[in-house]
């Protein structure tokens, strides 16, 4: 199978999202810690049972799942930010500004177009990130 390369601009955006995720701004720092109400996502020493029950592999699997959750939470923060933040809660504040060179007010643009474009970029980033993670932890499926 030939590997499919995502579009470069989407990838760049994805890398920016990644950069934001690894920076330590307060609201993003939140999502690098697993919330307390989901204790079993980060179990202290829960027995790990896999299909073929291989013990040394358990820590690796836990790490894979933790990285997966962290990525998902970061993406959901952005998802919430562009749609509910820029498009709904702060739309009037953002509407005071315009996207230079166009007739779009910033809030209006996010509400009707920008959020959709960002959603697409988020999924593109997720697909790429998870494919890399699958390879790194050797959990990718091989062709039958």
């Amino acid at each position: 199978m030939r590997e499919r390369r995502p579009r470069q601009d989407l990838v760049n955006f994805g890398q920016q999202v990644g950069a934001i995720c690894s920076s330590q701004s307060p609201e993003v720092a939140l999502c690098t810690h697993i919330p307390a109400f989901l204790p079993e996502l980060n179990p202290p020493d829960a027995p790990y049972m896999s299909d073929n029950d291989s013990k040394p592999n358990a820590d690796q699997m836990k790490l894979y799942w933790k990285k997966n959750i962290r990525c998902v939470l970061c993406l959901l923060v952005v998802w919430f930010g562009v749609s509910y933040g820029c498009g709904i809660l702060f739309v009037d504040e953002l509407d005071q500004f315009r996207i230079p060179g166009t007739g779009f007010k910033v809030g209006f643009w996010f509400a009707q177009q920008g959020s959709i474009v960002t959603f697409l970029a988020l999924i593109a980033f997720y697909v790429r990130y998870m494919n890399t993670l699958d390879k790194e932890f050797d959990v990718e499926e091989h062709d039958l």
Partner: protein
Amino acid sequence: MDVQTWTYLIVGLSFILYIGIAIYSRAGSTSEFYIAGKGVSPIANGMATGADWMSAASFLGMAGLISTMGRDGSVYLMGWTGGFVLLAVLLAPYLRKFGKFTVPDFVGDRYYSRSARLVAIFCAIFISFTYVAGQMRGVGIVFSRFLEVPIDQGLIIGMVIVFFYAVLGGMKGITYTQVAQYCVLIVAYLVPVIFISIMLTGNPIPQLGLGGTFKDAAGGAPVYLLDKLDGLSTELGFGAYTSGKKDTIDIFCITMALMVGTAGLPHVIVRFYTVKRVRDARASAFWALLFIALLYTCAPAVAAFARTNILTKVSNTAYSVIPDWFKNWENSGLIAWVDKNQDGMIQYTSGEAFTKIPGATKVEPSYQGNSKAGPRGESGERLLKNVATTDNTNELYIDNDIMVLANPEIAGLPNWVIGLVAAGGLAAALSTAAGLLLVISTSVAHDLVKRTLNPGISEKGELLCARVAAGLAVCVAGYFGIKPPGFVAQVVAFAFGLAASSFFPAIILGIFWKRMNREGALAGMITGITFTTAYIVYFKFISPELNTKDNWLFSISPEGIGTLGMLINFAVALIVSKFTPPPPQDVQDMVESIRYPANNAK
């Protein structure tokens, strides 16, 4: 060739194409019938999901809704796309790894319970039926508008087509017809918009044209299209187009209910079972949203362009010099005009031009006389049975669907484009109807008969049962389409609320919280559905007169209440789980195993 001939030709060709594909890719086994044998490529699956997801409402109705709602139209734009992010990162990969056939399969296995499976079957069938009735109606309406056959006859033609490829082809058949239908509908949507964008702004890309400058035929100073539109709207008393009118909390809740509902709709979820690998499920979500976004980012442009056209070309214009498309659509009942002040000019301001006919569900024009020749007023307009309102000066009624339907004529495009738009509308309605009918058939044959009532049934028997169920579902859906119970229009929002408050929390907790057990899931789903149903039924059916902001809970409208239902579901499920025994070890192992695409360390 005239419009009629072109329309028959293009619609006929598209139907032959769908049937040809169905025969070529008919299903031979239950796996092919339910999930296309897991052999669909991510791009094809993305297109099929796009067609499956975009219904007659997205294709015909949404642009019109946005056009009247202005910025608030974003609830549909964001609500019906944002759910794909949730699907991609929270549901699709894990459900694909789980790898059975349906949503009730997952709920039943994950919660080791027959009751949970039955609740899920009931929800899946109920959601699908409410949704499919509207689609069948949409098929009938497109037929009646473009081919001038009665709505009921059009609907029966549509039923025969869907029957053919859903019953014969199963998931495999509808997947490849949906790919074709996506291509038809996207071309039909984009061609007129591109020309209108060039006409109004000089920019061939509608998404950019929306933010571009308005090309004034009179040669005035250059002004941005959106500013021009804001100015015109404010002048006529509608309020600025780019400002919001609804409460922020209501917008928030409706958007959330639509997003989460999207992620919980069984006919969308099941599409992710049809690909080969987990990574293909993730990629499918990307392609699906890309193909959907192509239409959804154009919709606000269509809305703004159509609004500008109506405000500049129709408002304050004499009926005697009105463009032809206005009169054409007046004949179809999508536009109506009452000359309240007898000046022969069309005044368009805010408010309803006339009251609804007693017994009708919404304000719609009803003409005096049955033929186009019927009684006409002094200026030549068709006379109405409706009583004109006196508390405002608005004289114009415009149906939402007109914004898409009239585009080719407004842009002065050749007749074949009109035929193409008709084929596009039919493709959107048929593809969604087929997807939903398949969910109903699978729920009956697989979940109800095979997994609950008669586990010993043979593969052949199950396949026959699935086909019979699909056939019956087509007939029931058609019946609802011909004789729509008054509530059909009201309950589409219900389908989303129900999906949001039932499936979504049960699936999410089932994947991400191993401790989640049967008792919690059942309690959560039942309270979620009961609360949402009670609220909607109360405001829509029992006391519709109380359906105003002052009476709503936290000023959340019935359209957005699914969000609250979902939160209640989550809360109840978490609390009940905490106080009841954890799920058995084999279920916990299953949850662990769906988290990894594969385990290669042997």
